[in-house]
């Protein structure tokens, strides 16, 4: 019987290696696998390259990973979002490298890797500083920039519902980069608010088919304890 669910979140992340490229979907604070990021903080892997849209907030999750000195490089579109002091301090101390990539180019580079393609020509950033050093080509009179695929060793995905095969759904704008990252990594680890029985998800509405998913951990609705949103859940439970 296929069962991708793992009870212990520490076991789910225990083989993430030093130097890994880690895909971290999410937009702002929405759709981020904060539980898996905390588990990665505790696990100890270092020298990581993080692919994300933003660069961590406050002192939890990705920000905590940066504060612990475990991130070598961030590939993102917009680090300046919310309280990003963890990133800012490391950036100013030059202990962390930033590769700035237009937002749609990040998602398409990952999608390209997922699709087994060798890259693509995009009009985005043509003629700008972000295209410096990149191959360009004029196609039908328009200038394009060559972009390489971007593959992750690991993706840390946040789902809303999952079954034991790894079929996933997401909730509202928390979908964002999650389905893309789930397809673009060698190892896709998912945290889900809740598991459902196999067959309970409407096959017409599965957003990520289980073929892309390796491990699932059920974490409940509440964010991790050091997350600013935790207090509300703790209060509601009391």
């Amino acid at each position, binding site marked *: 019987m296929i069962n991708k669910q793992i009870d212990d979140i520490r076991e789910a992340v225990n083989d993430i290696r030093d130097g890994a490229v880690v895909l971290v979907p999410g*937009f*702002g*604070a*929405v*759709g981020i696998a904060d539980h898996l990021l905390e588990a990665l903080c505790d696990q100890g892997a270092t020298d990581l390259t993080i692919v994300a849209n933003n660069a961590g907030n406050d002192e939890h999750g990705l920000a905590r990973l940066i504060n612990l000195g475990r991130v070598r490089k961030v590939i993102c*579109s*917009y*680090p*300046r*979002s*919310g309280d990003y002091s963890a*990133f*800012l301090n490391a*950036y100013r101390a030059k202990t962390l490298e*930033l590769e*700035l*990539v*237009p*937002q*749609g*180019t990040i*998602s*398409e580079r*990952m*999608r390209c890797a997922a699709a087994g393609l060798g890259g693509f020509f*995009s*009009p*985005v*950033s*043509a*003629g*700008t*500083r*972000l295209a410096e050093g990149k191959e360009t080509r004029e196609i039908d009179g328009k200038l394009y920039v060559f972009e390489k695929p971007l593959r992750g060793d690991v993706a840390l995905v946040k789902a809303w519902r999952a079954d034991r095969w790894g079929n996933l759904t*997401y*909730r*509202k*704008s*928390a*979908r*964002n*980069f*999650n*389905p*893309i990252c789930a397809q673009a990594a060698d190892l896709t680890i998912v945290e889900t608010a809740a598991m459902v029985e196999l067959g309970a998800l409407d096959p017409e509405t599965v*957003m990520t088919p289980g073929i892309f998913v390796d491990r699932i951990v059920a974490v409940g609705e509440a964010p991790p304890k050091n997350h600013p*949103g935790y207090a509300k859940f703790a209060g509601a439970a009391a």
Partner: protein
Amino acid sequence: MTPLSRFQIAWRAAQDLPEGAYVNLGIGMPTLAARYVPAGREVIFHSENGVLGLGPAPQPGEEDEDLIDAGKNLTTLVRGGCYVHHADAFLMIRGGHLDISLLGAFEVSGTGDLANWTTEDPNFPPGVGGAMDLAVGARQIRVLMDHVDKKGKPRILNRCALPLTAAGVVRRIYSSLAVIDVTPEGLVVVEMVPGMDIDRLQALTEPKLMLAPGCGVIAAPAELGAPAAKAAGQAA
């Protein structure tokens, strides 16, 4: 002569959004335009984080932490709206599926070059977000901006001083002083604020301006003038 407030600039831009248009609103002043679409006109707003059919800010009790806009503010979905993942959200942008993108700008050139992603402040890391995608992808790029900088210097320039977001993309400028079209022949002034004339506007604009036949006056609602609109508690 009083420059338009940011609310009035957004109001003016909103008047030009046609029925049935798919529109992306950039962060800041462009986001305000959603409030001022004339009643009865159906315009569908796209948000880069995978929301097609973006609604107004939630009422108290209606907030959902999984539903935010590109500025990371809590938002709502209109009836008929839907969610997509990021690759599709940017396919819509990059692939020319959006009719109009309203963007903010630091500088615009006489040939429609746009600079809106970095001020090159050495103390902070750069951030580009979806700015470059939006600037090349939508069928028409319209810009909302203050006509001059804080020192009164032109921000509509012969050549942008700041790094470009995209070259030759801007088709219309809604500034605090005028509505200006970027045409192959040059900049054409379509409307000006009450009390403004072409000579004074030219003195605040680097590229040569041409006056459109029948150039009009911008008739923005006075109640949206600063600071009254802010006092009305209109959080972005």
